[in-house]
C-alpha cells in the first residue's frame, strides 16, 4: 500500500511537470494559443446549437426532459474538453510510430503508455469546453429539478470520471493500429465520428443503436450515464456496467498496447 502511494505520488508529480512544461510551451506561441481557444469556441457553439434547439422545442423525448438532455450535452462538451486536453498525444502517436521518434520514450524507466499519452497537455482547447459544459450541467440540473445531494453529485462525478477514463482507453485503440498500418488517418476520422454519437443524448437513437452503444462499443456510457444516474434511471446492472465497462475496455486496450509495443519497428535514421 505504501509502495502504491509512493508510485501514485511519482506519477502525479510527473503529470504535474508535464502540465507545467506543456503550458510553458503553449505560452511561448501566444497567437497559436489564442487561436486554439477561438477554434474550440467555434466548435463549442455548434454543439450549443443542439442545446438551444432542444430548449426551444422544450419537448420530452423518450423519457428525457429538455433540461435533462441539456445535462447530457453539457457532459459531452465537458468530456470532449478533457479529451482535447490529451488529444495532441493521440494525434502525434501515428507520426511518432512512422518517424521513429517513439524510440527515446521506450527507453525511460516509466510506464510507456503514461509517457506517450499524457506527455503533452493542451490547455487552450479544453478551457472553453470545460467551462461551458459545466455551466450547462449546472443550469440543466437546476432547471430539471433533480436532487442536489452529496450522493447524487458524487455519483455524477464518478460516472463522469469513468466516462473520461473510458474515452481515454477506447479512443486510444484506433491510434494503436498505427503500429501495424502506419497511416491511420481514416480510422482516426472514424473514431471521431463514433465519439460524436454523443452529440445528442442516446435516448434519441433507436433501441438497437442504444444497445450497441452501451454493450458492444460502449460510447454512450461516456456522457449519458452521469445524468441517468442522477435521474435514478440507471438499473443496478447498468450502474455496475457503467463502472465495469471502462475497466474491461482498459484491459483490452492494455493487451493491444502490449502487442503494439512488440510490433514497433522504429524507423531508420
Amino acid at each position: 500500500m505504501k509502495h502504491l502511494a509512493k508510485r501514485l505520488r511519482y506519477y502525479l508529480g510527473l503529470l504535474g511537470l508535464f502540465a507545467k512544461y506543456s503550458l510553458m510551451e503553449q505560452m511561448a506561441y501566444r497567437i497559436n494559443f489564442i487561436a486554439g481557444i477561438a477554434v474550440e469556441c467555434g466548435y463549442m457553439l455548434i454543439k450549443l446549437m443542439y442545446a438551444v434547439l432542444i430548449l426551444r422545442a422544450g419537448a420530452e423525448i423518450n423519457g428525457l426532459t429538455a433540461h435533462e438532455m441539456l445535462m447530457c450535452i453539457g457532459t459531452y462538451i465537458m468530456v470532449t474538453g478533457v479529451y482535447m486536453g490529451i488529444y495532441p498525444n493521440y494525434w502525434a502517436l501515428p507520426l511518432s510510430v512512422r518517424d521513429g521518434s517513439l524510440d527515446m520514450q521506450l527507453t525511460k524507466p516509466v510506464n510507456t503508455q503514461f509517457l506517450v499519452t499524457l506527455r503533452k497537455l493542451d490547455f487552450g482547447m479544453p478551457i472553453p469546453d470545460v467551462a461551458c459544459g459545466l455551466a450547462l450541467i449546472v443550469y440543466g440540473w437546476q432547471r430539471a429539478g433533480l436532487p442536489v445531494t452529496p450522493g447524487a453529485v458524487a455519483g455524477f462525478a464518478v460516472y463522469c470520471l469513468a466516462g473520461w477514463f473510458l474515452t481515454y482507453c477506447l479512443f486510444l485503440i484506433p491510434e494503436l493500429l498505427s503500429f501495424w498500418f502506419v497511416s491511420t488517418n481514416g480510422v482516426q476520422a472514424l473514431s471521431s465520428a463514433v465519439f460524436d454519437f454523443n452529440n445528442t443524448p442516446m435516448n434519441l437513437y433507436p433501441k438497437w443503436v442504444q444497445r450497441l452503444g452501451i454493450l458492444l462499443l460502449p460510447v454512450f456510457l461516456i456522457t449519458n450515464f452521469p445524468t441517468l444516474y442522477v435521474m435514478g434511471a440507471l438499473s443496478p446492472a447498468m450502474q455496475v456496467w457503467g463502472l465495469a465497462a471502462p475497466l474491461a475496455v482498459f484491459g483490452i486496450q492494455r493487451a493491444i498496447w502490449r502487442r503494439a509495443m512488440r510490433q514497433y519497428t522504429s524507423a531508420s535514421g
Partner: protein
Amino acid sequence: MEIITVQNLTKVFTYAAKEKGLKGSLRDLFARKTLQKTAVENVSFTVQKGEAVGLLGPNGAGKTTTLKMLSGILYPTSGSATVAGYVPWQRQRAYQRRFAIVMGQKSQLWPDLPAVDTFELNRRIYEVDADAYRRTLDELTDLLDVRELLQVQVRRLSLGERMKMELIAALLHRPEILYLDEPTIGLDILSQRSIRDFLKYYNEQTRTTLLLTSHYTADIEALCPRSIIINHGSVVFDGPLAEVSEVFGHKKLVALKAQRDLTAAELAAFGTVRACQHNTALLEVERDRLQPCLQRLFGALPVVDLDVKDIPLEEGIAYFYQKAGVSAP
C-alpha cells in the same frame, strides 16, 4: 566482467512491397506482397564492463538495429542478449535505470524549452536525488562548457550545442552503459572533437561502458580500442582498429610530384597507378619492393617531392564492408 552478451541476435523486418505507378498501387490495394529484410543476422559478441566498443558498418548494415535491440526499443526475431543481467527487450525499469542512449538524429529534449527543463524532468523520471543531480549537472556542464546555454531554448541551440545537451540529459542518472548512435553526425570538426574528447574522458574517469556507432572513423579511432564491423547484418571483424589497417599492411602509397607532367604509362612500371594528374601522381607499391622502387623513381623521373604513406584506415574498413569474410586481399 562481461556486461553485454549477445548471441545469434537476428532481426527480420517484414514490410509491404510497393509496386510502381498507379496500376501498381491499385494492385497493392487488393493483393499486397510482403517482403522480408534481414537487418541483423546471427550477430554475437561480448563487451566487458568499462570497455568502449565501436560498431562500424555501411548504411543499412544493422548497427543501429543492434543498438535498438540492446536498448529494448526493438524486439529481436531470434537470438538472445543480456545486458547487466537483464534481457533488454523485457524493458524492466531496473535495466532502464542502468543505461542511456543518445541518437544523433533523435532528440529527447523539449525543443521549445531550455534544456535545463528536460534535465529536471529526467531527474524526476530517474528519481535522482536533488544534491546528486546538482553535482552531476555542474560537472557535466563544466566539462562540456555549456553553462551559459542552460537557459536557452533548445531550438535556438546549434547542432553541436544540442548534442552536448543530449549527452548531459543522458548522463544525469549516471548510467553504467551508454549507447551512442552517430553522436557526431552533421557536426563541424571542432564540435566533433569536443564531443569525442568528452566521451573519452568520461569513459576513462567513470568506466562507463560505451557502445558506439559512427560513420566517422575518427570517432572510433579516438574512443574505441576495439571495433566490431558489421556488414549485411553479420559481424565480419572484431578486434582493435589497428588490425583493420593491417589488411593492407603489405602495401604503401607513394605520392609524388615531378618537375614535368607525368603519364600513367611511364608510372606503371613502378606500381599500381591510383591517380595521375599533370605533375602529381599516387602509386600503390608492395611494401617489400618499396626501397628499390623509390631508387628507380628518383633515377628515372625529375622528382621534386615524395611522400610515403600507409593505406588509409577507411580503405581497410571499406574492404570489410565489401567482403563477407576476413581474408587478406
